């Protein structure tokens, strides 16, 4: 609405033609006369009209190409980031970055982006959306969709002057030449459009409101299942039955002859915690039997070896490299598997033990205090400790099936570190860390004292209340 109403609202000149040939001839004339801002309107596509009007080839294909390549790149970068970097997840045993799996999405996004590029690029190039065009004001222009052909010269063209254009179009043999003026019809948006718009917005909120309502209210009706096969997975759990296999077991036994990952890794010493050279020297039969037993176990044919006799030559060292990483791993694994009974510090006061003691279960055998000197490496070699973790002792079950060999040794190393930590003099701590340790100890003592005081106070208050 930048045009002032006082100014002449001359938008250009339109001429009507009755045949394609006369239109094309007129187009050529107008083009040759040097007019650039022209347009033709026809009821059907006309071959060669671009050339006749001197319209340059569109850059739309380039927009389309760039959009398409953007789509390819977006898809590839997105999938590589999601699947190969940010959230690595093994799918069908393929590498995290497997190009063939990414191609279908890349293909689709290429098409999608290219189509968007073509569609919206066309809008942009044509100045769409445009709800009205001044040529619509011409009383005869409606026939452009029926049986007439129109040629239009815009008044913003450099060469435009009213008389000249009228004369030029007259020469082309057009019977009807008319000035295109501003559309005088009201430009206000009709009121009912606002109502429709408001109603649509309101209606579009309803589904969201329904979802939100359901999220915050309770209902006694069973929930609605959108994806029943996802809510009730047909996959079987362990110990369940299935008609799929002859033995009706959902849980499949190992295939004979297969070796699971981590199985049979490392030497026999690392696997059993027994000094094999020494054992072979004293009892070659037992050594051979042990080897055979482990090989059979790998083949899935017999049970694991029986508990070795107590004169076993246990390893007196840890056969894997002990470093900070191993100790950290040992601490983590100890925390997961051991601490529930033995306690985080190994004092035998884990949560399970606390509860069992409280409830006075008569079958409960209290777990060992790992700081018992009988369990120190002098009397309880590393190999034996390993064997205990592996095969269990008394009420404690063996952990061979749950903890990997390497991790069992890591726990052994961590238990040794725990034992050392309880009785270590300050001077084994490096000089630069001594102050830190002292401060930590002071803080811990202080903390303990406070806790005791608080407990005493609470007890006193309770007593008071009871009285």
């Amino acid at each position, binding site marked *: 609405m930048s045009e002032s109403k006082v100014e002449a609202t001359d938008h250009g000149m339109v001429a009507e033609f009755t*045949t*394609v*040939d006369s239109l*094309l001839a007129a187009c050529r004339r107008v083009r040759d006369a040097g007019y650039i801002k022209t347009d033709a309107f026809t009821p059907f*596509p*006309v*071959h*060669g009209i671009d050339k006749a009007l001197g319209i340059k*080839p569109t850059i739309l*294909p380039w927009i389309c*190409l760039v959009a398409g390549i953007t789509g390819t790149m977006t898809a590839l970068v997105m999938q590589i980031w999601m699947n190969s970097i940010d959230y690595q997840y093994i799918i*069908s*045993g*393929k590498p995290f970055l497997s190009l*063939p*799996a990414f*191609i*279908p999405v890349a293909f689709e996004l290429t098409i999608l982006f290219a189509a968007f590029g073509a569609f919206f690029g066309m809008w942009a190039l044509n100045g769409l959306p445009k709800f009205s065009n001044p040529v619509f004001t011409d009383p005869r222009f409606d026939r452009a969709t029926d049986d007439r052909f129109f040629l239009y010269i815009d008044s913003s063209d450099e060469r435009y002057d009213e008389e000249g254009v009228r004369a030029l179009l007259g020469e082309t043999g057009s019977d009807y030449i008319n000035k295109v003026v501003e559309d005088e019809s009201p430009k206000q948006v009709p009121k009912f459009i606002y109502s429709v718009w408001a109603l649509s917005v309101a209606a579009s909120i309803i589904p969201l409101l329904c979802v939100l309502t359901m999220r915050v209210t309770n209902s006694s009706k069973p929930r609605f299942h959108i994806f029943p096969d996802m809510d009730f997975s047909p996959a079987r759990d362990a110990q369940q039955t299935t008609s799929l296999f002859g033995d009706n077991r959902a849980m499949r036994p190992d295939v004979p002859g297969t070796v699971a990952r981590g199985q049979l890794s490392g030497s026999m010493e690392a696997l059993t915690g027994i000094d094999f050279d020494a054992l072979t020297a004293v009892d070659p039969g037992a050594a051979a039997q042990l080897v055979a037993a482990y090989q059979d176990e790998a083949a899935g044919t017999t049970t694991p070896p029986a508990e070795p006799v107590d004169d076993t030559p246990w390893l007196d060292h840890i056969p894997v490299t002990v470093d900070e990483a191993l100790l950290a791993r040992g601490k983590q694994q100890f925390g997961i598997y051991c601490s529930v009974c033995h306690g985080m510090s190994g004092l035998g006061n884990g949560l399970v033990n606390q509860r069992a003691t409280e409830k006075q279960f008569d079958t409960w055998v209290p777990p060992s205090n790992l700081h018992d000197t009988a369990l120190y490496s002098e009397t309880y070699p590393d190999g034996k400790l390993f064997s205990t973790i592996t095969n269990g002792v008394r009420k404690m079950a063996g952990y061979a099936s749950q903890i990997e060999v390497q991790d069992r040794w890591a726990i052994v190393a961590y238990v040794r570190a725990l034992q050392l930590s309880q009785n270590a003099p300050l001077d084994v701590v490096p000089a630069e860390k001594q102050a830190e340790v002292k401060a930590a100890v002071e803080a811990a003592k202080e903390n303990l004292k406070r806790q005791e005081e608080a407990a005493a106070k609470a007890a006193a208050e309770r007593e008071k209340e009871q009285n």
Partner: protein
Amino acid sequence: MSEHAATKLKPADDPAYKLPACLGKFQLPLLGGGLALLLVGLFLAFSVQSNEDVSMPRFGFSAYLTAYLYTLSICLGCLFFVLIQHLVRAGWSVVVRRIAELMMIMIWPMAVLFLPILFAAFQENALFAWTNPDYIAEFVPERAWENKKLFLNPTFFAIRAVVYFTIWCSLSLYFWRGSVLQDETGERAATDRMQLWSGPAVMLFALSVSFAAFDWGMSLAPMWFSTMFGVYFFAGSILAAHCFICVSAFLLQRCGAAKDEITVEHYHDLGKYMFGFIVFWTYIGFSQYLLIWYGAIPEEAEWFYTRQLGSFAGISIALVLLHWLLPFFGTMARTVRRMPAVMALWAVYILIMHFVDLFWVVMPEARVGHHAHVGGALGVIACVLCAVGLLGLVLGLVLRMAASSHVVAVRDPRLRESIAFENF
């Protein structure tokens, strides 16, 4: 629209519709040279096979099969081109349809040239591994073979081949005669009849080509199967057919025939189809690969695994880059498609890549054991000579047929429309 009225048709006996002499003179050299090259190629191929160092007992006939499938795929592609133009009542393609028809009718000599392959099917281990009991015993599980042998046996193989050629020969003859007789009579009803029959013809074509591809391409690896293989072969064929039409039209015009009839618009359209079918071939090839790669079932994956080893690994990568990526971007631009000489060059290039494609399909199966190889430089040369020779032989026959008829369907009712055809 307006140009339709303006287009003047030349009389049907105008020299512009005849095979130009500068092409016609190649007839005998092509026939003789083609035959000679084919024989030399076969000799070399069989000498590679008899070389003690390489264990490729099926190399000789495989080289012939590669050449044969290469030539046949262009003929079949042209047959399909003709069928589909009639089916959709295409107007634009009338000026180039005769080129396709000339190649389509070559299915008749191709039926004769199939005899060596039929012969090989009855020889133990000459071409198809399934003719070799030792191979079957070693590589095909007994259970699978019990079922497969019902299909993969020489007798049934021969019966099927007869069925395929009966279909193709009848179709090509029907559409050839319809078009050539119309040159004389100008009968409009001939076009209507061909349109009517093109529907059932396309269905017969689709089934027969699919099964022929299973028989002659897929069964080379008896344990392997891919339901997409027929489409894959077809995709290459139709691509090659458009390239063949494009380059033939260009040569005809260079020699002065159909100079005013075939315009840049027709190259533009052929270029669009070439571009489209490059993508189609890639789409089908990749889909076939993706499913097998994802499933990773040994009996399926083995076919691609073989092609990831040794020199075939390079060819596999080259197919992706040179059969798809390069011509994809090369033929993408409208400007390029409107340059007949450039499109003709791309057409030749794609025809060469189409040979590489079929070489990659057939030749790895000439081996024994797991490691396929191309048979050294001599093996490659032998295969190329066979293909060039066989194609040359057939092109010689094409020229012979062209000399006795026209190179444009001169009295087709849509000829005027076709000449005036314009892209938007």
